[in-house]
């Protein structure tokens, strides 16, 4: 650090002296000055603006970067060019001036997008985390969500292991039980982006709006936080950038289960003890010993992935362009799973006149996902859970090649390998977005911007899932689904901005009028029990087994927004805003929501103690308050509905379909409202080489949009019920530790603490049982929403070890069985036994470069949460469809000789037990990359970097399953959202360990 300071001083002082000397010149003659504008690599910049400061006297550099201008010696020339830092040069005695412009690497840091406008970072009053390309360019990411993980304090990202699976992004905890907790994604001013489909390479920056003062301008859709994505614009000389990486992924760790031969021996022993004959002969056992069937090995594979990026960008003062293409193909580590994405973007902007700017962005993508295990029958666990609990003495196919789909022992469901191998479920989604951005400067201070966006998403699912054999009697487990969903969106935003300074008073006023509409149409076809071999030939002759459906919904929002930003002498900052939303999701009387916010910030930078300090270079205090809403529920939530699912037959042949009431309307339904207070402090040290930021927040979400089941019925009703509080601290620290010609080392550390609590439910209700059901075939819930507990707590009995010999057993219990806390009547006492929401998450991203070498490491961690390991429960057997104990021998089970707290082999098992609650805390090396850049290796190639990287290389955790970070998606997510069941592992797709090899070339 000392060295760096020295370096700063040695470089800074002469420059200051130079300026001082220039300032002393007092010559007033008008001369013709000639000069050249070049970039940092001495390449001439054509089209740069050279203006005499304070005048309209300006010229543009020619193709070779040359210019001539009339100026007097005390004039200051302002040289600017898009993408480069503006430079001011005092003419002085010079007659020729060579100007070198530095690329504006700080551009994104200095100016942040705040929604309906931009602001200098130093002017911010709200809590905003910025993630620039720079922070993730060292990790080969195929997904934008990966770029957010651990890099923005307060943002948690939970990956799904399946290729192309949705990642769960949460900002400052979770508020809603039924409504979706996904943050709003706004891409270049247009609502409703999907991070999954965006090419990470297209992103120039992302801002995460976290506190209500920043969010309130998004009103009814801001309560889950907003991620503003700004895509790249070209600048300067044409630049071609090509990157390709190749990945190899594998299962990171294995779960041990009993081997085939041991299983057969144990089964024989139990049968003989029960008075039955042995099932396996000695020959059978020897054969199994020599050729065991390892269903885990059969399920997982080494997966290959390829990702290619190409972008061409450039521009001058008239036209800027950025055109890119991306192809990603990722096999899953579970056999037959795959994800493929094509993405094309074209961003073009033009300065038509001095006052009129037009931008046109187009984005198209196609995603294809094959055999996502979440779409297979998971009522009694995923294919992963089934594989680990399936009869290990049977092969997948018999000698004649016929698939063996069932066994009368171990798992009572269909053979998962046979299912995957014969199934093909393809989800293809085509997305097309186009938006026009017109900016017109009405006066120097008054600007008008119009954003018009249209988007279409067409999703098509073709699913052929075969579990049984068509030759079986009543073969009914070949399910065919075909569906199309088309979503069309449109948005029109009118933004008027007035910006003026009066002495020390700076005003920035924004007014917005905006409306958006969305229409979703789905239709589809289902049939079951067909004997054909594939999707297209499956149109069943038997129309009584065919189903068709057509559904749709419309929704719309109309909004008005006003925002005033004021600052006094760049020291005191005040922001106030009000957004008014009218939403079609609510009836006329309850449709209009008002979302106000107020914030202040005070910068101490002009105070003497900072100006004089060698250490502290920036100190700013921020405080804000505001309200935001959530309307993330079905477009039809307020209406009465019926569903055509009463099926019966009167004549034994013809199915009749009757209507039953399925939803009771609620005209009183309105927004869920989150009120948030945020207090923060930003500090910079050593001239900004080290920056720190800390925020405390307290969010109260009231009138939760809850999909309730009316008591005593199965009729749903959406209600505004209950209250959830999230409070916590976000901290980030970022700095350049070493910076010299050969060696640089910088690091960013983010940390978030979160405390979530449900504080109120319906009058008189202490808890609502969750809708994530046990896999044991009963409808008992695994989760509960309870007052005083975090959202989505685990529900079950309290495990008290084993019954020991000599104790007085209840009826039907023997020594070595599991013991649970019971009430006076002998029933298990069920209650909250854990929670899956981490209270602490952190990330450390650090990069070291030495000459041409680059090393990047990214570690992320979470602690203070549990995982409900249903997979471990299923392996122990003894309940529901898990008929045999497949846990490894000698895993410390109770025996009469060694009376441990782990129940005896084959003991009756209860999956709803704290026995299966495990600490989920982990530290993960998410990324480690080593790269080498060649310079001037090939002429015309600016840089060529080769790199190797590994993801998920190690994981430190006590969790016994595959991965504590993944949780199973609820089978039925209609009633509670995924956050009400976070941390429940019913055989979730684990995060793979991945090695990537890549090459990056810039021309």
């Amino acid at each position, binding site marked *: 650090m000392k060295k760096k300071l020295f370096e700063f001083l040695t470089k800074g002082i002469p420059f200051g002296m130079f300026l001082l000397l220039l300032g002393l010149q007092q010559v007033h003659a008008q001369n013709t000055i000639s000069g050249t504008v070049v970039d940092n690599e001495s390449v001439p910049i054509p089209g740069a603006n050279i203006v005499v400061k304070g005048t309209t006297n300006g010229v543009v550099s020619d193709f070779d970067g040359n210019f001539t201008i009339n100026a007097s010696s005390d004039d200051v020339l302002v040289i600017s060019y898009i993408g480069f830092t503006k430079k001011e040069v005092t003419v002085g005695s010079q007659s020729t001036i060579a100007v070198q412009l530095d690329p504006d690497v700080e551009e994104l840091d200095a100016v942040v997008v705040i929604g309906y406008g931009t602001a200098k970072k130093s002017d911010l009053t709200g809590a905003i985390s910025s993630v620039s390309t720079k922070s993730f360019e060292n990790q080969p990411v195929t997904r934008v969500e990966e770029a957010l993980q651990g890099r923005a304090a307060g943002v948690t990202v939970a990956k799904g292991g399946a290729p192309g699976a949705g990642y769960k992004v949460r900002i400052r905890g979770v508020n809603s039980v039924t409504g979706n907790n996904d943050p709003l994604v706004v891409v270049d001013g247009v609502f409703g982006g999907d991070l999954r489909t965006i090419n990470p390479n297209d992103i120039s920056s992302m801002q995460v709006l976290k506190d209500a003062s920043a969010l309130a301008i998004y009103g009814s859709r801001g309560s889950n936080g907003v991620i503003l994505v700004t895509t790249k614009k070209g600048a300067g000389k044409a630049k071609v950038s090509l990157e390709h990486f190749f990945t190899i992924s594998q299962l990171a760790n294995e779960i041990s289960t009993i081997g085939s031969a041991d299983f057969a021996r144990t089964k024989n022993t139990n049968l003989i003890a029960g008075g039955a004959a042995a099932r396996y002969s000695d020959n059978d056992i020897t054969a199994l010993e020599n050729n065991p069937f390892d269903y885990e090995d059969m399920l997982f594979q080494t997966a290959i992935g390829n990702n290619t990026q190409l972008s061409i960008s450039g521009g001058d003062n008239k036209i800027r362009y950025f055109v890119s293409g991306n192809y990603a193909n990722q096999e899953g580590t579970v056999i037959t799973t795959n994800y493929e994405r094509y993405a094309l973007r074209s961003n073009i902007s033009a300065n038509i006149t001095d006052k009129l700017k037009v931008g046109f962005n187009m984005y198209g993508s196609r995603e294809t996902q094959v055999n996502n295990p979440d779409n297979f029958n998971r009522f009694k666990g995923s294919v992963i859970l089934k594989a680990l609990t399936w009869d290990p003495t049977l092969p997948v196919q018999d000698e004649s090649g016929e698939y063996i789909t069932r066994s009368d022992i171990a798992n009572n469901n269909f053979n998962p390998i046979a299912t995957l191998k014969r199934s093909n479920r393809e989800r293809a989604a085509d997305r097309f977005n186009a938006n026009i951005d017109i900016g017109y400067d009405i006066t120097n201070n008054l600007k008008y911007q119009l954003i018009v966006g249209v988007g279409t998403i067409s999703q098509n699912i073709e699913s052929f899932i075969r579990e049984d054999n068509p030759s*079986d*009697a009543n073969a009914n487990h070949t399910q065919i689904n075909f569906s199309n969903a088309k979503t069309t969106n449109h948005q029109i935003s009118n933004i008027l901005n007035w910006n003026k300074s009066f002495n020390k008073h700076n005003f920035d006023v924004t007014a917005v009028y905006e*409306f958006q509409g969305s229409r979703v149409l789905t239709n589809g076809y289902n049939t079951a029990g067909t004997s054909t071999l594939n999707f297209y030939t499956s149109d069943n002759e038997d129309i009584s087994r065919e189903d068709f459906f057509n559904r749709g919904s419309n929704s719309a929002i109309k909004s008005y927004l006003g925002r005033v930003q004021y600052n006094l002498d760049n020291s005191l900052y005040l922001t106030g805003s009000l957004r008014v939303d009218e939403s079609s999701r609510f009836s*006329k009387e309850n449709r209009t929501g008002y979302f106000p916010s107020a914030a202040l910030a005070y910068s101490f930078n002009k105070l003497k103690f900072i100006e004089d300090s060698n250490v502290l270079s920036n100190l700013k205090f921020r405080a804000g308050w505001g309200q935001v809403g959530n309307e993330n529920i079905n477009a039809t939530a307020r209406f009465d509905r019926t569903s055509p699912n009463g099926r019966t*037959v*009167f*004549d034994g042949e013809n199915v009749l379909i009757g209507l039953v009431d399925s939803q009771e309307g609620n005209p009183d339904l309105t927004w869920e409202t989150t009120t948030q207070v945020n207090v923060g402090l930003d500090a910079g040290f050593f001239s900004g080489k080290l920056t720190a930021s800390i925020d405390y927040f307290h969010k109260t979400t009231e009138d939760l949009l809850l999909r309730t089941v009316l008591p005593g019925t*199965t009729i749903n009703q959406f209600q505004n019920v209950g209250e959830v509080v999230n409070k916590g601290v976000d901290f980030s620290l970022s700095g350049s530790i070493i910076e010299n010609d050969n060696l640089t080392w910088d690091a960013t550390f983010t940390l978030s603490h979160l405390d979530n609590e449900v504080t109120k439910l319906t009058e008189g209700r202490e808890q609502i049982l969750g809708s994530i059901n046990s896999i044991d075939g009963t409808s008992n819930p695994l989760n509960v929403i309870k007052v005083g507990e975090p959202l989505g707590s685990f529900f079950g009995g309290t495990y008290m070890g084993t019954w020991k010999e000599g104790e007085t057993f209840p009826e039907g219990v023997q020594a070595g069985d599991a013991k649970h806390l019971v009430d006076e009547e002998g029933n298990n006492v069920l209650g909250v036994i854990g929670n899956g929401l981490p209270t602490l998450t952190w990330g450390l991203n650090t990069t070291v470069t030495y000459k041409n070498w680059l090393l990047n490491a990214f570690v992320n961690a979470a602690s203070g949460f549990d995982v409900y390991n249903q997979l471990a429960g299923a392996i122990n057997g003894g*309940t529901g469809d898990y008929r045999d104990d497949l846990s490894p021998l000698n895993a410390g089970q109770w025996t009469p000789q060694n009376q441990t707290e782990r129940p005896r082999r084959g003991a009756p098992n209860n999956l709803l037990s704290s026995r299966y609650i495990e600490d989920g805390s982990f530290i993960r090396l998410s990324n480690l990359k080593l790269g080498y850049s060649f310079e001037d290796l090939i002429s015309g190639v600016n840089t060529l970097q080769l790199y190797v990287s590994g993801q998920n290389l190690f994981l430190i955790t006590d969790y016994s399953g595959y991965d504590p970070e993944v949780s199973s998606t609820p089978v039925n997510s209609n009633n509670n959202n995924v956050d009400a069941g976070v941390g429940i592992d019913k055989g979730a797709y684990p995060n793979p360990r991945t090695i990537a090899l890549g090459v990056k070339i810039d021309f």
Partner: protein
Amino acid sequence: MKKHMKIFKEKRNTIVLVSAVFSILIFNSCVNLDPDPVEFDLPPGTYGSVGDLDNAIIGVYGQLTNAAKWTTFHAPSWAGDDITTHRESNKADFREFDQRNVASANGRLLNNWDAVFNIVNTANSILERSEGLVDLGVDPEKVNRLIGEVYFLRGLAFFHAARVHGKIPLPLTRLPDPNIGLSEVSEVFAQIEADFLEAESRLPDVYPGVMPGAVRPNKGSAQSLLSRLYMHWAGFPLKDTSKYTDAANKAKEVIDNSGAYSFGLMDDLEDLWKLENRFNNESVFTMSYCGDCGFATANLKNSILGLPGDFDGWQETFAEVRFFEDFPEGARKEATYRTDLDWENFVDQKNPVFKKVAGPEGDLPSGAFMTGRSDFYMRYAEVLLIYAEASGRSGNVTPESWEALNKIRRRASGLPYDTPDAGVDITTGDIAELAFEERKWEFAGEYLRWFDLVRMERVEEALTRRDEPGIINESNAIIGSLGTDNYFSPIPAAAIEANPNLAN
């Protein structure tokens, strides 16, 4: 100057263009905040036509089918001494009933509870919404019949739950009171009686245009269920023995009008369980299924559900050993059990197999679990035996009472039921107890025995006998109490969770 003009013109054009765009986009909001709720959905409301009412009633039947197609619908009957299940496998919920150790968290109990109240709620919704229909000048006879049907189904649903739980809530409004409490058994029975009486008065002698066996109920169906209700009313727990007279009278009414209702006995008991006879006149209320129409409307209780692993069966419904051994030899035993199977040497679990469940040999497709077999929710044979038993218990025995009992005895021995046979017929003795004993054998495996044991307080006697050591011992030993304190199943924990007033 010219150049400037041009620039000015260009500028003006731009301004005109921009202004045009402004005015279009600013002032014409193109969103609709009031979407048409009927564009995509048919919301419920007051029925506008008989067709709407018809559609809604099919909805109630749909809920009945969805519940009754599963063995779960009858899971409490595993408590009887006639039915048992696999000792392990995934049958824990059934074992809880079998072993008299039913937890309030029992999943089948909850599923049944929800199923029953779905039917009740939908029925209530129809009754409320159809109020306006009467004035619409639509076919009053049809409306009356449809409304009668709704009352019948609601009564049936209440009765189905009351037999299991005793005290149940009695929601009678479209949306139930969320804080509704349990009603006393007397109130529950009075409500069921009221519903069946309402049905009786509205339903025709024969429902037009349906298959034999009252696939949709007729007057006789309502009367038959009333007679069954009165038998329970006269027994445990209310023991209002005056109801035996009502039971006898209602049963007699059915017998006297059996011609009009198209009810009668099947000649050969064995034929009753054949797929080809799924619509027959012996059933006084039939639930119909389609085996080839997919999961939603298939009967999922029979065939491999009744077979052990030895036949790739699904090990759900087995016959109790002791009951089988005590079963009088003869045609009825042959019609009840698959005596062709050597059950004593099964590897999986040694229990006899019900022919009533697994199907007569070769009748159901082998390995099938979805069948088109009908459920005979109540048989005319039961009406006859109720008449015999109730006339005995009410002290009003007539020759017709004996004839009713003897018809069943004759058929059980493989004889024509209408032809008196001195070798089989009896005309002396305690007819009530003889009829009660006759029910035991006649309805074995038909999910009725447990409720007979409850109403006559014979649980301890029967289940102690069940567990006496025999040639092969029972797999699932009794764990819980056999006293009257354990006759009724607890209210499902989840239902209490949703509404704590259901706790007591």
